[in-house]
């Protein structure tokens, strides 16, 4: 048993509703995974000081190295979050304390304790790849979400490393792997992200590709043959049964991050699509339910930017353009602002999605980019671009890092991606700008997902409006 003893009161970072969560105090620490691109040293989880009054503001103040090289840490999540207050299955007297950190390449899962000193996290349990495959039926674990039955984990590959990818469950107190989640997967084969409309018993999953399509970089022939994900899926969360597939456009591929509305009464959300074969554009789609049936429609399209082939990596020269490559999106806890990371063009966009059918762009920040190389006020020209985005619970601060996934970094930034993390300040009425004092450079390592201490816009689900 890894878990700590039950508490007397619910963890103070659990909020019954998104409207209460936005009143949470500002975060003072971030947890960021970093990857060693040479796969010779172990990857790490670093702790970044976010307290602007602190002397070490914007610097790394803690670090825990994994136990093996080559894990390729990617996404990660908490053992428990606000969903512990949900009334059908309440278990609120536990702590948001452990980070579940999977290696996307190794399929190893680390359980990391962030207490008693949150700046000195420690590895308390390791689930080896063989055990993950044997017990879960899957490999290449990706997204982590704390939910009603335990911890839900998506995985790109089946136990033998091919397909189908899917979802498996972990016990949220012992961190033992329980087993595959699906009872009836219908036509679903590819996997990537998963999230839900918790009070509506609806699970959502998206599609990237099987391990052979991603682990050695983007496969151009597979892209031309439209083998990457082209739809998302709607499931019955309670009965674990596939309900509906929602295909995006004919030419669109790689349907990645799912961001359902936090308000449990709403039945819509946004999903980012990386690329269209037609014109290299990227897009954001809105899923919603009308009269009991789910539909999907494109609500944002971001065009490719024409470019001098001389400045482009080999793969892009023939196209004479930079694709935006929307790799991550994030929705503020109040469901008002959607952030869209364009990793190729080096831009983070902010949209007001008060009317989710008609997003209105309210902000843009350029940093990095395949051609632009936009600098921060504290840096020279940057490479990489806005990638994993995290928004504070009050919506006033936005953090992002610049590395996607090592083999893909090499294709789009072949000169060698240099890792960095920045912070933007967002205005309540819309608009945002980089914090001139926050620029964190990583030496030799590449940062990926950011999790904020106490929760953030993509960590918690709420059962009450």
């Amino acid at each position: 048993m890894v878990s700590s003893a039950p508490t007397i009161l619910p963890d103070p970072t659990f909020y019954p509703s998104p409207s209460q969560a936005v009143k949470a105090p500002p975060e003072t620490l971030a947890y960021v995974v970093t990857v060693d691109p040479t796969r010779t040293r172990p990857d790490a989880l670093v702790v970044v000081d976010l307290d602007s009054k602190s002397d070490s503001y914007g610097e790394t103040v803690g670090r825990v190295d994994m136990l093996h090289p080559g894990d390729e840490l990617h996404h990660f999540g908490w053992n428990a979050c606000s969903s512990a207050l949900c009334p059908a299955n309440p278990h609120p007297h536990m702590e948001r304390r452990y980070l579940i950190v999977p290696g996307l390449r190794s399929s190893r899962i680390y359980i990391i304790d962030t207490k008693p000193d949150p700046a000195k996290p420690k590895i308390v349990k390791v689930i080896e790849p063989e055990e993950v495959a044997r017990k879960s039926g899957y490999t290449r674990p990706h997204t982590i979400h704390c939910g009603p039955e335990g911890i839900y984990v998506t995985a790109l590959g089946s136990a033998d490393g091919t397909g189908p990818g899917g979802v498996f469950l972990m016990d949220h107190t012992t961190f033992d792997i329980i087993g595959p989640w699906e009872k009836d997967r219908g036509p679903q084969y590819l996997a990537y992200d998963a999230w839900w409309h918790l009070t509506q018993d609806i699970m959502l999953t998206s599609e990237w590709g099987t391990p052979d399509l991603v682990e050695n970089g983007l496969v151009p022939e597979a892209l031309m043959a439209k083998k990457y994900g082209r739809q998302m899926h709607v499931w019955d969360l309670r009965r674990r049964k596939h309900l509906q597939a929602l295909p995006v456009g004919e030419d669109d591929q790689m349907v990645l991050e799912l961001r359902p509305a936090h308000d449990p009464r709403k039945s819509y959300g946004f999903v980012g699509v990386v690329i269209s074969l037609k014109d290299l554009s990227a897009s954001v789609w809105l899923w919603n339910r009308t009269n009991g049936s789910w539909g999907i429609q494109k609500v944002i399209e971001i065009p490719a930017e024409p470019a001098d082939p001389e400045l482009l990596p080999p793969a892009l020269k023939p196209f004479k353009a930079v694709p935006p490559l929307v790799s991550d999106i994030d929705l503020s806890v109040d469901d008002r602002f959607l952030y869209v990371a364009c990793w190729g063009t080096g831009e983070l966009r902010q949209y007001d999605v008060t009317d989710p059918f008609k997003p209105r762009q309210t902000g843009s920040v350029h940093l990095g980019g395949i051609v632009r190389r936009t600098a921060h006020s504290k840096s020279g020209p940057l490479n990489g671009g806005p990638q994993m985005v995290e928004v504070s619970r009050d919506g006033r601060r936005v953090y992002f890092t610049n590395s996607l996934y090592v083999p893909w970094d090499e294709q789009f930034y072949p000169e060698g991606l240099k890792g960095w993390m920045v912070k933007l300040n967002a205005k309540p009425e819309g608009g945002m700008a980089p914090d001139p004092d926050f620029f964190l450079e990583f030496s030799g390592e590449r940062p990926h997902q950011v999790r904020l201490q106490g929760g953030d816009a993509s960590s918690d689900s709420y059962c009450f409006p």
Partner: protein
Amino acid sequence: MLSLTPDWPWVTVVLLGAFHGINPAMGWLFAVGLGLQEGRRSAVLAALVPLGLGHAVSVGAVILALDAARLAVAPGVLRIVAAAALIGFGLFRLIRPWAHPRWVGMQVGFRDLTLWSFLMSSAHGAGLMLAPVVLGLPSHHGEVHRGSFAGGLALLGLHTLAMFAVMGLVAVVVYQVLGLGLLRRAWVNLDLLWAVALLLAGVATLWMG
């Protein structure tokens, strides 16, 4: 020791009913959640009936089983068995505080809510907690078991009424007036208290002999 006054069984079941009703995990929170999801108070009220029913079935089953056992088993033996069950269950709740039913789903109708409430009450040992009271009812060697059955039914009715009243009151007041912000400050971990209550009930059952 416990049978100091003839009223103690009735007072005890009413207090236990209130104790069960005030626990968010026993139903009022679910009722509030459904009301908020649909945005109307009538959804809160509609949920209370199946929630109360499920609790009554769970508790009633234990009372019925104890009553039936009294016909066949010597009182001393039954008392020891019941005490062992209570103490065993109380220890289990202490040692495995995280064990809870893994119910998924908030799209629930009357039948689902009744089942949910039955499962939650049973998993918490709500009916078992009443064992000392049931066994303390006047019934000597089965000769007045008809009276004891009626007594058991009365206990169940009173207990359910108390549970229902407290659950309903808390649900409506939280929905209408207080809001859910109080969960963060006031949702005291009742599990420990609950386990202690089971252990005490076990001891009381032994003691009655």
